[in-house]
């Protein structure tokens, strides 16, 4: 192997500092959430305790965070399923040149780059003018989709760019209908990437704040609840909640990575039977 240039070591240090910068603050509140009962929002630590986690479970101390958590979790699942289905369908559509595809493409990009507060304000105004009540499962759900669908579609573009069309031709030559080709050939091949789309869908929704702000109605989602807490809670209980939600996010990412890994292994084990005869 070739000797590493000096720039490699310099950049390695730079990269390590960057990772420290990314994780540092999160680790800080992770530590502070174990602050003793007398401790405050900053260092020094006055003892170590689970006091603030305990407080999270007392209704009066923190309001309705468990309700907020349940709603965010439900909403995350709804957004996840919708994002996967809609992105796959749109991804399939974009493989053909259909009239209007250009406009739709630019709309999707617009959806990604438009300031979130405009979606929040606009959807809020529409519901207001139509005399409808905003609710996390209707207006909140739709607003979040404008954020998750573009990511889903971009992943589908990447997936279909690498997709070998000869598989489909083979299926067609063997007499598979269009639907059968999708169901038994295309979907199984792209399945691992769909885990990525699902991960984006769930976590972007679970952590979404700006687009849900004016569209969630009277029942808050978790990020809105946390935001409310930061303005009126002055104890480390905020950190405890932060630590817990971060841990939950990491758990979700872990679960998705694990399922991707299991799927890859299964695939490697079953393998291809090409050339082995029937």
């Amino acid at each position, binding site marked *: 192997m070739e000797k590493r*240039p000096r720039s490699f070591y310099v950049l390695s240090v730079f990269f390590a500092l960057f990772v420290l910068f990314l994780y540092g603050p*999160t680790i800080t509140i992770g530590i502070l959430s174990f602050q003793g009962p007398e401790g405050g929002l900053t*260092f020094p630590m006055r003892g170590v305790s689970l006091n603030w986690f305990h407080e999270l479970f007392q209704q009066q101390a923190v309001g309705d965070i468990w309700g907020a958590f349940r709603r965010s979790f439900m909403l995350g699942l709804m957004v996840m399923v919708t994002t996967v289905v809609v992105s796959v369908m749109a991804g399939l559509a974009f493989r053909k040149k259909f009239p209007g595809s250009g406009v739709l493409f630019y709309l999707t990009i617009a959806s990604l780059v438009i300031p979130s507060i405009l979606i929040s304000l606009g959807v809020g*105004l529409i519901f207001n003018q139509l005399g409808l009540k905003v609710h996390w499962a209707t207006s909140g759900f739709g607003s979040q989709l404008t954020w998750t669908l573009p990511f889903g579609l971009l992943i589908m573009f990447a997936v279909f760019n690498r997709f070998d069309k000869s598989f489909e031709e083979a299926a067609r030559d063997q007499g598979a209908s269009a639907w059968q080709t999708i169901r038994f050939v295309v979907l199984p091949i792209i399945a691992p990437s769909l885990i990525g789309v699902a991960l984006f869908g769930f976590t972007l929704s679970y952590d979404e704040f700006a687009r849900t702000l004016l569209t969630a109605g009277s029942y808050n989602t978790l990020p809105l609840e946390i935001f409310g807490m930061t303005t009126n809670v002055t104890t480390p209980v905020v950190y405890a909640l932060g630590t817990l939600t971060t841990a939950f996010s990491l758990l979700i990412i872990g679960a998705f990575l694990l399922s991707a890994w299991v799927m890859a292994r299964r695939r490697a084990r079953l393998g291809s039977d090409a050339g082995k005869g029937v």
Partner: protein
Amino acid sequence: MKVTRETVTGWLQAAPLTVVLLGFLVAPIITIVIVSFWQATEFSIIPAFSLENYEFLFGSPVTYKVFAATFKYAFLTWAMTLAIGFTVAYYLAFHIRSQTMQIALFLLCTIPFWTSNIIRMISWIPFLGRNGIANQTLISWGVIDQPLEWLLYSDFSVILAFVHLYTLFMVVPIFNTMMRIDRNLLEAARDNGASGFQTLVHVIIPLTKPGIMIGTIFVLTLVMGDFITVRFMSGSQRANVGRLISNDIALLQYPSAAATAVVLLCTVLIVIGILLRFVNIRKEL
């Protein structure tokens, strides 16, 4: 034009996406534009055509100051995220040799992106505060005698938080384009006697331009549309356009909020329009 079966299938498959975007992107924007011409009292909004929101907006010196502040945040954040993001992407793409290691390090960088922005913002407070880690470390090292006041609730903390939140949006597209650069080109440059630095400037940077542009679009639009980071990290002492809008919303002044939103949207679109002259996104995907 002949409508084939394939076209119809394409339309049907694209229909759900189209419906969502029409209902929750196009319709809201149209509504905002309409409402921006309405009037408001303290209690309700009145659907009557008027230009007073815009007259007030463009007549107020605050507007120009706030837009200037927004551009300042956007520019500084862009410069920092580009410098950091490019370096990190370059390291991952050209210095890490095994693909497994590349993916592992890349994931390491992306994980924080999947946790709550708000939590990540709160996390800076014990770090930067008056008695925070940064001040105490500097004092114990003897660099300063008094805690620095400008670390938290200042332009510094706002930009620091932006860089923290959005550098990844720069790393991902740049890394992506770098991975597609034909390694033979780099070898050719070296064989022809180019130094590492010359290869970087004359080969890698020009070929990475599309990734840089996509990252730039992400970062600029995220920073220009932000309203929460500025409020949070400045302790409500600084303003940007997003905060102007959210303050109006809090006061139920929807028409005025809508007018500011329209101006913000136009500004963002102009910025993107300029950037798109340098890159064809559709070709890059």
